[in-house]
């Protein structure tokens, strides 16, 4: 209880980290809903890793060009450009290849993940100015979140959430029945691009704030849990975001109280909630079937 009081105090030292963590927990599932519905979950593994490779690549290019990065803001902007660029290009290329459907989706995503993970390490190793700070940024060291970077995160994630809500009718139609959308005169490619852009931005900022592991965890686990307990699209999104937010807050509290690493704690909690809900539903089904047979 005292931990909770300490965390909720206005002058809490890690307040920025707490708010950033909850923001990632709320917004990643909102985007993750479309990962689940479009059966793109594996992309959720590859894209954060690709985004991390983009951060490393941007720093490497900056070092090779001997451009000095003065201050944290310049580093963040550089990281954002690399992260966003790699995530968006990767998403568009993978989505385009999926339409052609020459190889299996899993094969393409698996190769992308392996390449991105290897490239991240190689880019860092090749960077003559490889700094610990860059490694932190790659891993997503949420504890170092500053007020300025939190403000940017709030503005960006706020925009993503508003866009997802405002265009939910179009994004749903294009995701559910693309042919119908085209017949109705909707520009399906345009809506796909908007969705990919929102996904790319969310993943980039998620990775820079909390790292690839937490971003992937929140993209997938809360929406999968929410899908088990909801029957409407709007409640699906809202429950996924609430689950993500609550998990992030509880994860932060647990991590702070017992001095555990935040990222793995968040992911373990999110998956535990998923397992409990899935187990409960399975049990309910078995009991229901037995009762049905008994009557």
């Amino acid at each position: 209880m005292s931990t909770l009081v300490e965390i909720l105090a206005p002058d809490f030292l890690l307040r920025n980290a707490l708010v950033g963590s909850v923001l990632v927990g709320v917004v990643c599932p909102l985007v993750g809903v479309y990962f689940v519905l479009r059966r793109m979950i594996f992309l959720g593994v590859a894209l954060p890793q690709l985004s991390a490779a983009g951060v490393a690549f941007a720093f490497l290019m900056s070092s090779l060009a001997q451009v000095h990065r003065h201050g944290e803001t310049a580093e963040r902007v550089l990281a954002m450009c690399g992260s966003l660029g790699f995530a968006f290009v990767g998403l568009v290329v993978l989505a385009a290849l999926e339409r052609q459907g020459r190889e299996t989706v899993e094969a393409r995503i698996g190769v992308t993940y392996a390449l991105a993970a290897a490239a991240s390490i190689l880019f860092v190793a090749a960077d003559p100015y490889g700094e610990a700070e860059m490694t932190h940024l790659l891993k997503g060291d949420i504890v170092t979140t500053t007020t300025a970077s939190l403000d940017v995160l709030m503005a960006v994630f706020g925009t993503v959430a508003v866009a997802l809500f405002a265009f939910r009718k179009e994004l749903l139609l294009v995701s559910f029945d693309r042919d119908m959308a085209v017949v109705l005169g909707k520009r399906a490619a345009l809506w796909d691009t908007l969705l990919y852009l929102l996904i790319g931005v969310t993943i980039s900022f998620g990775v820079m704030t909390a790292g690839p592991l937490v971003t992937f965890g929140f993209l997938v686990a809360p929406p999968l849990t929410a899908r088990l307990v909801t029957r409407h699209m709007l409640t699906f999104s809202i429950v996924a975001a609430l689950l993500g937010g609550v998990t992030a807050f509880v994860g932060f509290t647990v991590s702070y109280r017992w001095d555990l690493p935040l990222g793995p704690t968040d992911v373990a909690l999110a998956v535990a909630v998923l397992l409990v809900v899935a187990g409960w539903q399975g049990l309910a089904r078995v009991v229901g079937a037995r009762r049905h047979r008994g009557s």
Partner: protein
Amino acid sequence: MNAVVRLEDVSFGYGAQPVLRHVSFTVERGEFAALLGPNGAGKTTLFRGMLGLIPRLAGRIEYGFDRRVTPPGYVPQKESLDPIFPLTAYEVVLMGATARIPPLWPVGRRPRRLAADCLARVGLAEAAEQPFWSLSGGQKQRVLIARALAVEPELLLLDEPTAGVDPGAEAAVIEVIKRLNREQGLTVIIVSHSLPLVREVVGSVIWIERGSAVKGPTAEMLSAERLANAFGIATGVE
């Protein structure tokens, strides 16, 4: 013009490779037509081409209505839709009813009433709040017909609406389509493999074979000789 859709010397295909060439026919207002032909003849290509889902390589298509104002009602095969989406029957139909509402505009009462009305027209008013994926095959197909009706179309195109449904459900689906055509004068084009069904309810047949298409009255188009050549059957019964 009294034609709802007119194709003049049209070629459809994938990439630069035409699958159908020099296709010309007219579907008049109020007609009930079927796209028929052997497997692989190009039924799906013609169907998707008429909907604008694949590019036209040559020729002209004229619609007797403004496609931007009243798009055609499109009924896909139910299997083409993923059951993972948490949608009720009503929400699926609402997608059609809100089709003409621009982005960022709120969904008002009219589309909601229209969606409910269209569900009632296909006899599924009571299933409105049921999850779409939990419905039977025939019910799903009727929900998709209701969604197409919610667009308020002048032309209804259905892709094998009775595929994979039991005989009772097939009769219910066909009854709905017949009623829409006869009582409300809706022009219907249907892709079907069922010759008995086509014989019973369809007025004209667009026969697709060897990369082209011809249209004529059902009895004439389903001659014993043509069916024997196409399907290797003498009676014309499936």
